[in-house]
């Protein structure tokens, strides 16, 4: 089990983790669990038992800590990425459906409003597209998945990244 601290990489820092390295994957995991808005290479992973890590804590630079093993790294690379992609696709399908339905309803509302014989009925009053599709439980699913990952990687937020 190796513990890492993750800190923001200075924009002028030439240090980038090697492709396929543990540190690179740790940054990918941290980006996902922190909801870090930038790319993962805006982050740096430092083994927690080093002086640099202690210094980062003293300077209040560390964003989070997490622990990995060969097995959990393998899980991230082989399983989690695919599942995250699938969750994102699921979320996109729901968002797209909401947009298309919302637009179709808006068109129908407008046609009703512009009609002479059908004024007074607003079809969208009968359907709450957004409320209904929330019932699908996508958020619960994301929450459960995320909690599993947080436990698996013993993820701890140390400092919230700037918005």
């Amino acid at each position, binding site marked *: 089990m190796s513990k890492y601290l993750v800190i923001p990489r200075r924009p002028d820092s030439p240090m980038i983790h090697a492709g396929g390295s543990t540190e690179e994957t740790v940054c990918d995991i941290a980006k996902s669990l922190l909801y870090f808005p930038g790319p993962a290479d805006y982050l740096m992973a430092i083994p927690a038992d080093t002086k640099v890590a202690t210094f980062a804590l003293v300077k209040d630079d560390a964003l989070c800590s997490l622990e990995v093993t060969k097995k959990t790294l393998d899980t991230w690379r082989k399983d989690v990425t695919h599942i995250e992609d699938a969750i994102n696709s*699921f979320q996109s399908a729901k968002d797209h*459906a909401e947009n298309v*339905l919302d637009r179709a309803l808006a068109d*129908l509302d407008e046609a009703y409003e512009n009609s002479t*014989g059908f004024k007074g009925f607003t079809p969208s009053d*009968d359907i709450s597209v957004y409320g209904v599709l929330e019932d699908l*439980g996508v958020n619960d699913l994301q929450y459960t998945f995320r909690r599993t990952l947080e436990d698996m990687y013993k993820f701890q937020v140390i400092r919230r990244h700037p918005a």
Partner: protein
Amino acid sequence: MTKYLVFKNQPGSGQANVPGSREEMACTIAKVVSQDALPKDFYIAYPLENPHSTWESLKDTAKFSVEIDDERAELWEKEILPLTDLSYAIDDAIGDAYSAIVEAARALDHACEKSKNFQYIKVLQNIGMDRAFDNLEHYSFGEISEKVEEIFEVEIFSHHHA
């Protein structure tokens, strides 16, 4: 004002309404009123004055009568038909949304099944697809249908679900 009688078009009759005709309009009005998804030439219409109507009446019972004049025909073309198209578009959007979300959920289930640590996630079993989509039923078509029945003084005779 012309009253049209609308009959079920017998399969293989070889008869069809002339596209753009009032007869075709009467049949479409009948379909909107019945709220059934029926093929294009499922019904055939004749003006009541047409001797063919009398003959058809003997052969079969008329399903609907529909009254059309120029003013109502214009209302149909300019207002009601676009409304019904938009209403159908919502049904299509709901159907498409259902398919897309089920497909995405299946892909997610598949990704979880293939994993070692996330096999407990069963998306399709746990998400409330049918419950959510039942709530998406919309009523605009029913509103249109009722109004169309009133405007075109549609009479429904019997067994229009033949």
